[in-house]
Every structure is written in C-alpha cells, then in structure tokens.
C-alpha cells in the first residue's frame, strides 16, 4: 500500500466486506453474528471517515485551495451515511429484518457511489497535489490502526 489511493481503496473494500457479512447474517436471521459484524463495520467506517475529515481533506484543501468543492460534498455525504448507520443500528436492535434490508441496500448504494467519486477523483488528486503524500498516508494509517487497537 504505497499510495493514498491504494490504501484508501483497500479500506473501502474492507468496509464492504464487513458490511456484507452483517447484511448476510441479518438475511439469514443470525442476529448475534449480525451484531458482531455490524459493530466492526461501524467502528471501521467511523475511523475511515474521521481519517478523511481530519487528515486527508484539510491537506487536500490546503494544497489546492478548494474548500467548497469535492471535500464539501464528501463531508455532507459522510453525514448522510452516519444518519443511515444510526437507523440501521436501531433496526438491528429492534430485530426488524425488512427495515434493515431496505436500509442496508440504501446505505450500500450511497457508499458505492460515494466510494466511486473518491476513488475516481479525490484520491488520485490528493496523491497528485498534497506535497508530503507519504506523511499523510502514514498519519491516516496510524489513525485507523490506533482505532483498531483501542477496540481490541
């Protein structure tokens, strides 16, 4: 993982994996497994979003001078994801399979198109314009990994 796009894209894929595991467990009615996977997903998603909002986006904005562009849209989509995650957590606690699956399809769509925008444009541009890309990548990695350690 030598570049920002590679590392961040791999994180997206990993989040997709855990998300799908939780969704599949709900579809099969395996609620304890769903709870476990969902917890991992929400923690890792939050760590990823925080890394973007607190490390990557500010440095991108500083490097390009663009503050009202893609990063603003991405932040807003993060908030939408968080709102959906909350709704999904409620559906999971209530054991409502139908509501959960309707919402999970929605979050999946939102995440996929959000990821595509980031992977297609934002990450390559960040790699190109942030002068100390390596340091930024290390900071992001450190943030996400320390979050994992805390969880353990």
């Amino acid at each position, binding site marked *: 993982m030598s570049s920002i796009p590679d590392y961040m894209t791999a994180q997206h894929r990993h989040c997709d994996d855990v998300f799908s595991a939780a969704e599949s467990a709900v579809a099969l009615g395996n609620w304890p497994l769903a709870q476990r996977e969902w917890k991992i997903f929400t923690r890792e998603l939050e760590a990823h979003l925080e890394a973007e909002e607190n490390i990557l986006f500010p440095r991108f904005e500083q490097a390009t001078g663009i503050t009202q562009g893609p990063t603003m849209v991405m932040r807003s989509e993060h908030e939408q994801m968080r*709102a959906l995650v909350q709704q999904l957590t409620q559906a999971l606690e209530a054991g409502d399979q139908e509501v959960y699956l*309707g919402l999970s399809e929605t979050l999946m769509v939102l995440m996929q198109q959000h990821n595509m925008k980031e992977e*297609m*444009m934002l990450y390559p541009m960040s790699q190109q314009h942030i002068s100390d890309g390596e340091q930024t990548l290390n900071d992001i990695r450190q943030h996400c990994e320390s979050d994992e350690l805390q969880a353990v």
Partner: protein
Amino acid sequence: MKLSGLSFSVMPPLTVPFRYFISAALMVMVLAGFIFFAGPDPWLSRWHPAMLSITHGFTLGFITTVMMGALLQLLPVVGGVGIPKARLVGGACHLLHVVGSIALMLAFVWPAPQQLLLMQTALGLLLTGFSLYLAAVTWVLLQKLSQGVTINAIRLAVLALAVTVVLGGLLLSRNLGADFISGHKVYTNLHVFAGLAGWIAVLIIGVSFQVVPMFHVAPDFPKWLTRFFPVLMLTLLSWLFWRGVTNGDSRVLTEPVLLLLLLNSLFAVVLLRVISRRKRKVPDNTLDYWRLSAISLFVITGVFLIPENYLPEPFNGKKAMWLTAAYLYFYVLSVIQGLLLKILPFLSYNHLQQQCLTNFQAMQYLPNMHELLPKKHGRLLFIGHILTGISLLATVLFPGLYWLFALLLLIEFSGLFYLMIRTLVLYLGCKTKMAQLELAAR
C-alpha cells in the same frame, strides 16, 4: 487532472433517462397489441413484413431505447463527464428516435402509397436522431476518462451502433430507390450481427464490468477478460463482416457466429463465477436475471452446435428464428430488465439524495431502496418474464400460440411500466416535500 470546473454533480436530470425507459416499455405494450392483431402469419418467416416490425419493435423500440437512455446516465457516473446540454440534446434525440422507430415499424406493414412516405420519415428521423446522439456520445468518449475498461467497451459498442445504423439506413434506402448496396440478404444479416453482437452484447459486457462488482460487492472481473474481451468481440465481428462482404453469402457467417457465441458463453462462465464469489449474499432479483441470461447463452450455443440432421424437421426450419428469439428475450431482455430493477430506484435515490446535501433535514423524506421498488414486485416481473419468454419460443415453433405470447407480453411490460411510473411518482412526491421544507426554512 484538471481542477477547474471540478464537479461531482454532472448527472443529467432524472427526466432524461426516465423518458427513454418509460417510452421503451410503452412501445412494447403497443407492440403486444400489434402481435395480437397480426395473427399467426408473421411467425412463418423472419422476412414477413409484420415480423420485421416485431423484431424492430424489440431491438430498436425497446432494447436500443433503454440502452440509449442508460448510456446518457452511465457516462457521467463511470467517466465523470456527461453529454453537453443533456436535457436539450437527450430530449431531442429521444423524440427523433421514438417517432422514427414507430414510423419504421409502421412502414414495414403499411400499404402503398403511404408506405413510401413512412419510410422516408423513418429514415430521416432515425438518421438525424442517431447522428445527433452519436455525435454527443462520441464527444464524451473522445475525452480522457477514468474507469478505462467499461469506457473502452462503451467506445466499441458505440462504434458498432454507428455501423448498425449506417447499414440499416442503406438497406432502407434501397426501398426508396437508392441502391448504394446490393439487395443480397447477407447485408441484412451483417446489420443484424453488428446490432446483436456489437452494439448490444459489447455494451452489456462492458456495463457488467462496472455494475456487477458495484451492486453485489463481487470481485472485479479478471483483467485478461476486461482488457481483451470487447476488442476480441469486435475483431470477430470484423472477420464476420469481411467474410460476408467478400463472399456475398450468408453461409460463410456460420463460423464467426459460432466463435462469437462461444466467446459470449465464456463471458457467461466468468460472470457466474464472479457472482458466486460475491460478498453480499442477500437474495436479489437482479442476480437471478444475470443467472438466467448466462444460462440462456449456454443453451443457445448448445442448440446452435447441434447438427441439423439431429433436430426434428419443424424445428430445423425455424432454428435461426428460435435462436434469435431466445437470444433477445432470455439473454438481452433479461439483463436489461434486471438492471432496470436496480437502476430505477438507484437513480431516484441518487437524485433525491443530492437534494439532501444542501438541506440535511430533507433526509427524513428520503425513501429507502426497497420502498422505491419493492423486491416482491421485482420477483413477479421475473416470473412474468420467464413465462413470456417460454411462450415466445413456443410461438416461433407453433404460430397458433401468438395470442398467448401477446397476452403475456402485455402483462409483463404493463408490470414494468407500472414499476417505472410508481418509482417516478414516489420520486416526485419526495422531491416536492423536500422543496417545501426548503421553502419553509428560508
């Protein structure tokens, strides 16, 4: 990478793709009425004038209309660039295409002297519509775009569409007295294969590279396939053209057609493998449509390979027609319907979600994907599609069953039409509520 003018909201208005989708479903509903009133005769030969109307109703009226609309939506999503003045250009192309397609379908069956006028109208409208569409899409495709493999496949599919249109135009011109090409049926077959194996199949394959991993959290298609497959398809198609034009005989097309079918079957094998390795394991109607289309390709290739003396006589005479019907209904229409079940709620949700970016409160009105298009409705459509497809294959062999096919076709596409309208009405209702909320907040 250019930073100026960077935008994440290049999507055309929802009305642009939806008008293509809705009119395509409506055209098939009208076509069902036509099939019912035309009786059993059109099913006797592919060259019957009414059968030419029916085949163009499906290929031009439904398949191409949906694909044109979907492409206008897809280009900004996978390439990051949309066609210029999407509402105006998309609207004009749609009008010219729909009216031109109806004129062409009528032209095949209308008696003289109005037939000539209908043909002239169809030729004028379709050529103008396609020229405008191809110019707009080509403008996008000539730019440096991301998501290479899908965009490259789209480039080749659009090239095949241009060839299909030119050949179709030349064939129609013959009826109007302009003999640019000879009247040999090999040219009609080349027109058919450019459309079926070039425009339709290459586009389906290219789009699958993008949407299957995205919607189902499946692994990416293998690189050897995504890089070389569309080019290989076009190379085979070029060989088919070269053989057809130099020999002037449709019989020499058998080998390239077989290779094209085998290549498509290889794609189907990989598709099934990718699907089986998906991470999302929830039941999904779109996945069932993909599976149905893949299995259909195996059956079609298998039947194509059976030597004629092994087949019963009534089937032998209808083999080409039966295979084409199976290809269109069970491969192509299955993929298109399956994707529509994802695209309709996906687009509606995306557009509504864009509105929430500026007004977070509006999220309370945002419906979830299953509310926009219930899974149960999708399941019913899938069952209806299989039944209609079986009745079509039976009608090809026993034309007396035409009424059953017409009836089931009408039911199936009324269902699809209902789902489109239902999604649109829900979208518009939410949009109005969101706008009211924004007004109240001011």
